[in-house]
């Protein structure tokens, strides 16, 4: 049927609709994967998709939230824009969490939503929602296509805006009459964006200032964020750090921008960062932030953040500089360009051996630690085994919460684009669909989705996609029968009043997987873990593993809310 239909339309020129034009524009933009879900207002687009030749790879989710998180995962590992298509009204509103997530974590997405026909917009028509109004605060930019002649230009601009400067989500709302309209002419795709000119090159004066500050620093520190990954500047960062022997710490999203096993790496900083990294932030006299936005989970109480440091901040988004932390040396630039400029400047660094030695001692004295429970699995130990058995080379996706922090602490990333997590928004239900997108974007890589039993239940319906496409994603459920981080905070700050945080009724995850035709396993004995991991990592298909871990295990070390970066608790066993 499908094949026949395609042949019929090849020769009929008059069948060209706004939707055909739209699909052609996507082909021209070299989009290879479309994450979507059909509905009334996008019927013309889905019809054009059906007729398109060559065929388009459309990934049908089971909920639009699954589509958008998959697109985020795809974007995070490929560096290309993730493309989403959903219908009007509920289709569009189901995307909101993902759009906000992408906005917070600067993930390039182009999201197409259907809209009711232009003539009835504003009349509360069936499945109408004010997509422009709703998405304005959560997008880098948004468009509603008023006429079909604007469509190619708008689609082109949307990809440009999403992927350049500081990446982010762009929504394009397409009324049904625009996609259904017959059209024959070619339209201009030329940009018309006079107000959008992201600055890539650093101001040479600021580079001189930064080099000068470096030449006086006795306790220098580099903080590398996701901006380094987006700018593909990991090589430059490594060269820069090695050239001047500068210690490096990472934000959560910046993990992988600098090799985690490198002797200069101090581990992640922030609320659940290492003692060494946080102490270094507290004591440093020059802090060079490259592509991080001084999020509150990193800085802790701002009063105590890097109190002795001169702060330099390299960011492509000028609005991030000075937003949270007063900055002496602002460098508005792409991380790669800025690092290249810094590598070209000649700097005589004063001796900072004492500083390096102190950090080295701290690293040895205060490593990340955990205890092994008597009955169930230790979640940290489990993640360490995942790291070792996958040789540190897997793409890891997570939700938010305890399992996310343990993954960040115990899975060491040496390469960029292997770490897919929901940072800023902290979205439960992100990790598993993101793994689908990651696997589609990196078909030859091992993709492991480390999720909690709570978060997995928010988007597990996408198991259908795994089965349909036999995507070999490995899902490790760190199952503590609780919303672990909520439970931990209730234990620590609410006198153990576990209000609604214990999941007393979970499904049988093994049978659940099997009901989708997917292999399901349950592990609760330590000795079974390594054979299980060896088994699933060599198995060419999807697996769900329900790992029963100790509920009472907490994430340490920790900076309690409102406390300074120097006031960590649980730094030692």
């Amino acid at each position: 049927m499908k094949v026949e239909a395609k042949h019929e339309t090849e020769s009929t020129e008059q069948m060209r609709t706004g939707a055909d034009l739209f699909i052609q524009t996507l082909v021209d933009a070299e989009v290879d994967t479309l994450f979507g879900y059909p509905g009334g207002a996008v019927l013309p687009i889905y019809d054009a998709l059906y007729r398109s030749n060559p065929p388009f790879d459309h990934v049908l989710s089971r909920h639009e939230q699954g589509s958008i998180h998959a697109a985020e995962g795809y974007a995070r590992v490929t560096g290309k824009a993730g493309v989403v298509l959903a219908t009007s009204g509920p289709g569009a509103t189901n995307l909101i969490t993902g759009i906000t997530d992408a906005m917070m974590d600067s993930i390039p997405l182009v999201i197409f939503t259907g809209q009711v026909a232009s003539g009835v917009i504003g009349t509360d028509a069936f499945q109408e929602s004010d997509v422009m109004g709703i998405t304005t605060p959560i997008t880098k930019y948004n468009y509603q296509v008023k006429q079909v002649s604007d469509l190619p230009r708008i689609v082109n601009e949307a990809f440009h805006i999403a992927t350049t400067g500081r990446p982010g989500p762009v929504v394009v709302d397409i009324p049904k009459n625009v996609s259904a309209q017959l059209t024959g002419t070619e339209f201009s795709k030329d940009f018309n964006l006079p107000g959008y000119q992201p600055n890539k090159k650093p101001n040479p004066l600021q580079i001189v200032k930064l080099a000068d500050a470096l030449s006086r620093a006795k306790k220098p520190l580099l903080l590398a964020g996701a901006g380094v990954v987006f700018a593909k500047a990991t090589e430059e960062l490594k060269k820069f750090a090695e050239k001047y022997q500068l210690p490096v710490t990472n934000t959560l999203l910046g993990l992988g921008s600098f090799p985690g096993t490198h002797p200069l790496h101090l581990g992640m900083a922030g609320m659940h960062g290492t003692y060494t990294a946080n102490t270094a932030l507290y004591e440093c006299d020059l802090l060079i932030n490259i592509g991080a936005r001084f999020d509150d989970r990193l800085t802790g109480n701002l009063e105590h953040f890097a109190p002795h440091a001169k702060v330099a901040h390299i960011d492509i988004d000028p609005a991030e500089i000075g937003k949270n932390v007063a900055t002496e040396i602002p460098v508005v630039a792409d991380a790669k360009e800025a690092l290249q400029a810094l590598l070209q400047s000649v700097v005589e660094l004063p001796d900072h051996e004492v500083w390096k030695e102190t950090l080295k001692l701290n690293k040895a004295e205060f490593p990340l630690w955990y205890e092994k429970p008597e009955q169930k699995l230790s979640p940290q130990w489990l993640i360490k085994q995942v790291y070792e058995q996958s040789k540190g080379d897997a793409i890891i996706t997570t939700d938010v919460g305890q399992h996310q922090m343990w993954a960040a602490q115990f899975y060491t990333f040496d390469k960029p684009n292997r770490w897919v997590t929901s940072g800023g928004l902290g979205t439960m239900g992100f990790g598993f669909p993101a793994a689908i997108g990651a696997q589609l974007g990196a078909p030859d890589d091992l993709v492991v989705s480390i999720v909690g039993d709570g978060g997995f239940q928010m988007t597990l319906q996408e198991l259908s996609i795994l089965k349909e496409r036999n995507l070999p994603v490995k899902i490790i459920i760190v199952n503590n029968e609780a919303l672990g981080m909520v439970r931990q905070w209730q234990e620590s700050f609410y006198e153990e009043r576990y209000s609604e945080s214990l999941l007393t009724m979970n499904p049988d995850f093994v049978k659940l997987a099997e009901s989708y035709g997917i292999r399901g396993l349950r592990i609760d004995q330590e000795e079974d873990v390594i054979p299980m991991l060896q088994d699933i990592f060599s198995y060419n298909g999807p697996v769900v593993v329900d790992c029963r871990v100790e509920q009472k295990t907490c994430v340490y070390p920790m900076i309690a809310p409102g406390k300074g970066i120097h006031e960590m608790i649980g730094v030692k066993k």
Partner: protein
Amino acid sequence: MKRIIVATVQDRSGVLNRITGMLQKRQFNIDSISVGSSETEGVSKMTFVVDVGDHQKLEQLTKQLNKQIDVLKVSDITDKAIVARELALIKVGGSGQLRSEIQGIITPFRASIIDVSKDSLTIQVTGKPDKVEALISLLKPYGIKELTKTGVTAFLRGQQPQQVTELNSHLI
């Protein structure tokens, strides 16, 4: 501190919503906004009077405005030589004897009466906000029935002195 910020923006649908939404989301305090077309077709000019706590917050405001894709240019013109005007329409009660009294009050302000009815009259006044405020407070005893203001609109004077001695911030 109050500041006058001028922005030129592309006249696209949703641009006002985008900007006011951003201001609200980032918790900036707006005294007034005036928007209208400019000398260039397709480009609008916006004038904001904002109340910001400190320079850091002010810098954030201009950066966040600049970040908007529809925004072409942002300037804080508070400390420049500028012309700044707003217009107010004030309806006060009054008949007979009172009318000539009111006329006497508004003359030095170069305001004018633009509508008269049996028991009220409407006054139009244009000028810097402090002047408008001064007239309003003089008219209060007569009973203000209705009042509307356009908000400040402003731009730079044709010539900028070498050194600006007169700060405008006290005027707004």
